[in-house]
């Protein structure tokens, strides 16, 4: 039997019994679409998290003081002087002490929830904030404990609309501050809105909060190649000051990235596993339809045998039928899945990152599924004894 005839003989009943064909490929279509959409969604989300972690600032090391637990020989806290000294260690470009709280800022009758940072001029540079209006904090602001502030883009808009607010007054924790600058919009990182912020000098912050210790320091290495040098220098210095008794934690950007990547890859595996089960269920549905199709066509099978069809001819015909079903289900599923991916990623405002190996693998899996679930019905058709098959009503 010629190969084009195999396809032609297999294709005809699928076209004639349209409803049956559509129903049996629907399960596979839905499963494949789910696999494609979920992998793309997870891949895109993970990419988007990565770029946002990177947008925190490159070559970043965060040193955080841990809360005191129990009695310890070394109960000193980090001072502002120590934090600033970290900035002059080998391999380190800048260090910015950071203390923060969530509070509200108001101007006239307008209120805005913000994260209030007490810090030094370097933080804006380390976190890659750019200016829209005015200026950054200066060393003079810090040295003089001035009540000055730089507003995040969203905070400025909530308080002043689209007007340049430089020189205006805002109230933070019942204290008046003068606005000296406004940052350009930066976007959200995970759930943290990076535009609902205000930055004030760390000295001013300490005056009002009456806390003299420093919670954390954001440190930037000179170059990516200096990262490990800076990390060990910072570690040595902190160890000298506070001992190795778990008083501080050092976190690098790559460590944050690997944590988020672990989470997304685990989630991807679970979701794709669930979707793959639905493909399998679709395959079982197809198996069922193929079995019904064979038992409805026993006479036809007997007739084909009487006309000279060999077992092999019937085996390949019915296998071709199931592979055509599963492969068309797969192709439609890939198309639906890509459509759904584009729709969902744009709904969540993340860039769609379609991994081309996933559709290719999905289609290969569909062919395998067609053969796997087609082989039993096809073998049943091929094995029928011609005389008995022809007698069948």
């Amino acid at each position, binding site marked *: 039997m010629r190969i084009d005839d195999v396809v032609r003989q297999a294709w005809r009943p699928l076209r004639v019994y349209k409803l049956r064909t559509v129903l049996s490929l629907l399960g596979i279509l839905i499963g494949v679409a789910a696999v494609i959409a979920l992998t793309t969604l997870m891949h895109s989300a993970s990419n988007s998290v990565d770029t946002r972690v990177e947008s925190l600032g490159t070559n970043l090391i965060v040193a955080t003081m841990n809360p005191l637990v129990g009695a310890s020989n070394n109960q000193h806290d980090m001072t502002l002087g120590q934090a600033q000294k970290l900035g002059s260690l080998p391999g380190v470009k800048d260090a910015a002490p950071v203390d923060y709280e969530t509070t509200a800022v108001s101007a006239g009758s307008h209120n805005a929830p913000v994260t209030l940072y007490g810090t030094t001029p370097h933080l804006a540079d380390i976190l890659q904030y750019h200016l829209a209006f005015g200026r950054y904090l200066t060393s003079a602001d810090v040295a003089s404990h001035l009540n000055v502030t730089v507003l995040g883009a969203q905070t400025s808009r909530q308080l002043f609309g689209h007007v340049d607010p430089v020189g205006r007054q805002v109230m933070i924790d019942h204290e008046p501050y003068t606005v000296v600058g406004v940052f350009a919009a930066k976007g959200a990182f995970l759930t943290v809105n990076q535009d609902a912020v205000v930055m004030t000098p760390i000295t001013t912050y300490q005056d009002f909060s009456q806390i003299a210790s420093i919670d954390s320091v954001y440190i930037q290495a000179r170059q990516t190649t200096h990262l490990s040098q800076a990390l060990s220098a910072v570690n040595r210095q902190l160890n000298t000051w506070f001992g190795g008794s778990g008083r501080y934690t050092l976190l690098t950007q790559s460590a944050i990235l690997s944590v988020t990547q672990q989470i997304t890859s685990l989630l991807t595996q679970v979701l794709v596993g669930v979707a793959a089960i639905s493909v399998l269920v679709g395959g079982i549905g197809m198996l069922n339809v193929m079995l019904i199709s064979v038992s409805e066509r026993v006479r036809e099978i007997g007739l*084909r045998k009487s006309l000279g069809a060999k077992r092999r001819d019937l085996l390949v015909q019915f296998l071709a039928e199931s592979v055509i079903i599963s492969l068309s289900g797969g192709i439609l599923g890939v198309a639906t899945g890509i459509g759904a991916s584009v729709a969902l990623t744009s709904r969540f405002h993340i860039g769609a990152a379609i991994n081309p190996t996933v559709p290719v693998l999905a289609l290969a899996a569909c062919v395998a599924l067609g053969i796997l679930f087609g082989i039993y019905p096809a073998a049943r058709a091929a094995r029928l004894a011609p*005389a008995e098959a*022809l007698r069948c009503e």
Partner: protein
Amino acid sequence: MLQLNGVSKIYHGRVTTTALSCIDLTVPEGEFLAIVGPSGSGKSTLMNIIGLLDRPTTGQYWIDGLEVGRWSDAHLAGLRNRTIGFVFQSFNLVPTLSARENVELPLVYRSLAPRVRRQSAEAWLKRLGLGHRMDYRPHELSGGQQQRVAVARALAGSPKILLADEPTGNLDDASRRDVTKIFEELRGSGQTIVLITHDAQFAAVADRRLRLADGILEMEARAASHAN
């Protein structure tokens, strides 16, 4: 062309049934043989054995000079395709294929090129008066037309033997006369035919008639026309 020597068929079901017992039959090339008999006499079993669809329990069967007792299923399928054309009582057209595609089917299993088998199928359909129905599906045709498609399919592969099992059994009078006439014409062309029927008028067209009763084949009478 055909020779059966002591062919029996015994079915081992709940009770053991002897469908055919010790059949000896020779059909020379070009003969039109009619086998008549009541239902349950073993006609269909005999037809299946002659048509290579079933194997005898005992006995030997030569077809076209070959003893086929030990042939594999695949070889039998090939032999069936080349030497035998079937016409069934219930037409047995593939419902999803057009009349032309049904006629082409034996040639598909012979791996013939589409253009060649199309020509052959169209020629046979035209010869049987269905030139205007080639693209119709079986359910769009009358019973008589369907049986003519089936005859065209049986002959499209130029088989050595045309094997017909009650071809007029499901037809009205007019269609029955039609089909009878086709077989009469085929006899004139030298086609070897084995016809199984209980239609006495139809059987009268044959060169020779045999009666099958309880699995035993008996001589009947020479067809009157044979003397001509």
